[in-house]
């Protein structure tokens, strides 16, 4: 019999830091200062995430995709790349974008519905967040092709979820990248759920990492809640890709604590035991245990980090809310490099209607009703109404 399921190829699962905070195996090259910095990013990310969910509940931002629980996968992977490398995020990789240089304020303007919300910060090698599942795998592959063609030694990191591995684009990207030996790392954050559909319904394969086998590229499954382990496998992957040896696939096993976005209710599809089990594996608690045992961290220091995060995030919220959210006519300028004649005509029509609306508001609104507060404030008020109307 040639069919012997037990002889199917498997891939290794890598872990360095266990739930107790003890390490097994060779440590990555990180100084105490760097490890503390990584921890601080994790605390910052968690603090932001909790704040963002509250902002959404208050109607101050729109739909938001929480990432609490995935901080080790995000910070650990982002910490292993250089500013010259390229990042292709989904809507969940905000910490990766910040570590790569995107201001925190920008991540708030996006769910606030600001016209400039999707802008990529000058000098930051990143694509805008991707909504269509797995579409960015091809952009990362194409960018990796550019890296190879230009010979600039940059590595391209594509973030995706477990659901994305079910998409055709994922396979086309891996296949192309393998055939052409492109410097791209596909970093799957397997957070166990694609909205309400569990990982086991996305693929019957025992691991997602083993999908690398078919393309003959290195693939590994790593404990995604172990920041040291993630950092270590990512560092090796970056080295591999940078030296021209081709793509790498990493599956980070992790868990999102909250809903897919602020629009769904995970208690409808997940049971409490599962959530509790994963809470035991929380990446921040685990790394804190490790750092505490090494004498690098205590509860006062951790509280100070959280306080610092609260303060900086609060400031970013103030700045984002103060920023003008833009007007409809500006939108027309973003479609093409030069506005075509017919679009110009439509932009002028929109501008005229907008001017008429402003005039009417100025003429009929009672004094102090907010009509004089400027276009930015008006826009936010209507966004707020719209989001409340959705019943979120």
């Amino acid at each position: 019999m040639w069919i012997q399921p037990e002889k199917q190829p498997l891939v290794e699962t890598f872990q360095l830091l266990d739930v107790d905070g003890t390490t097994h195996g060779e440590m990555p090259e990180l100084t105490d200062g760097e490890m503390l910095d990584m921890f601080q990013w994790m605390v910052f990310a968690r603090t932001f995430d909790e704040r963002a969910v509250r902002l959404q509940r208050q109607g101050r931002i729109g739909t938001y995709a929480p990432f609490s629980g995935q901080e080790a996968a995000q910070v650990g992977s982002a910490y292993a790349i250089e500013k010259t490398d390229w990042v292709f995020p989904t809507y969940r990789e905000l910490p990766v974008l910040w570590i790569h240089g995107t201001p925190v304020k920008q991540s708030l303007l996006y769910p606030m519905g600001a016209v400039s919300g999707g802008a990529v910060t000058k000098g930051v090698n990143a694509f805008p967040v991707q909504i269509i599942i797995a579409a960015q795998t091809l952009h990362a592959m194409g960018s990796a092709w550019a890296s190879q063609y230009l010979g600039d030694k940059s590595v391209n990191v594509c973030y995706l979820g477990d659901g994305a591995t079910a998409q055709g684009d994922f396979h086309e990207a891996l296949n192309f990248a393998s055939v052409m030996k492109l410097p791209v790392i596909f970093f799957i954050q397997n957070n166990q759920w694609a909205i309400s559909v569990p990982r086991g319904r996305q693929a019957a394969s025992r691991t997602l990492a083993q999908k690398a086998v078919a393309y003959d590229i290195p693939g590994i499954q790593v404990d995604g809640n172990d920041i040291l382990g993630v950092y270590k496998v990512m560092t090796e992957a970056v080295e591999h890709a940078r030296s021209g040896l081709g793509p790498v696939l990493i599956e980070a096993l992790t868990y999102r604590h909250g809903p897919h976005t602020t629009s769904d209710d995970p208690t409808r599809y997940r049971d409490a035991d599962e959530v509790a089990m994963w809470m035991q594996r929380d990446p921040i608690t685990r790394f804190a245990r490790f750092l505490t045992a090494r004498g690098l961290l205590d509860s006062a220091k951790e509280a100070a980090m959280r306080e610092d995060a609260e303060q900086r995030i609060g400031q970013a919220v103030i700045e984002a809310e103060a920023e003008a959210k833009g007007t409809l006519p500006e939108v027309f300028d973003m479609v093409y490099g030069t506005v075509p004649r017919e679009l110009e005509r439509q932009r002028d029509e929109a501008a005229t209607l907008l001017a008429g609306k402003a005039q009417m508001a100025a003429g009929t609104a009672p004094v102090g009703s907010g009509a004089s507060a400027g276009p930015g404030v008006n826009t936010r008020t209507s966004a707020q109404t719209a989001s409340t109307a959705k019943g979120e």
Partner: protein
Amino acid sequence: MTMMNIIEAINSALQLEMDRDDKVIVFGEDVGHAGGVFRATDGLQARFGERRVVDTPLAESAIIGAAVGMAARGLRPIAEIQFLGFIYEAMDQLASQAARMRFRSAGTITLPMVVRAPYGGGVRTPELHSDSLEGLFLHSPGLKVVMPSNPYDAKGLLLAAIRDENPVLFFEPMKLYRFRKEEVPDGDYIVEIGKANVVVDGSDLTLITWGPTVPLAVGLAQKFAAEEGVSVEVIDLRTIAPLDVDTILASVNKTGRALIVHEAVKAGGVGAEVAALISEQALFSLEAPILRVTGYDTPYPVGGVEDDWLPNAARIAGAIRQIMSYA
């Protein structure tokens, strides 16, 4: 000047631009060693090497997605989709990725990329090789759609497309690839994207068309002028997005009558858009209803009946007479 057909004109444009700019890369299925199934990329790999003229795996979504990633990095990819009917495989990468990247990034990322694809009927292809799908992309803001009908335009428009900062879809009428040779400048020149061409001047009726039906329309205009005393003005749109509304309106305001001819299916097509624009902005110049002669609202038919399905001389002549019958 050299006598060239459309295929040769496209090849000439590619070669010229690849010589001029080493950021230009050509890739797709069979474009390298074989030089493309229609030989549009013939000789390019021998001249520029396997780094710049690349045979890719057979995967349309990846071909377009790769172009998106490359263009964002400052290269100028020219991707080929072997036949336009296969472009459905890449719809997401075109309509929701390439088209929207500038918009999504609030103007911070532009994609100078070109997608070439042969299309159009009358050549007895298998299923999904002949379909005219320009309407899909007119409906996807952020893309430009260019459809040349002669060798001179093909070269000048392709050079303009490669140098454009936006994603440009460059659709090539298969039937006209080797239809006729004409004088084409050997060197560099541009035919501006977004400008229609008034091919035949006329005063009684405006016939708006593009791509494979242009020579047919021109022939009919000459016939009607000579035999029936009807002066038909023929406009070759050359660009579907953006549409040259001004040229269309100026002509219809002059002639008072409009006929639109295209190979794509009728419903929701570019012809419907042109007719609506004329109704909105030139209704009171009209002396007759606007008519369309198009492919029928069926999937592109089998070879045995395609000549009857396509806009042919008899159908177009009938429409011209019908419009002229309104005194």
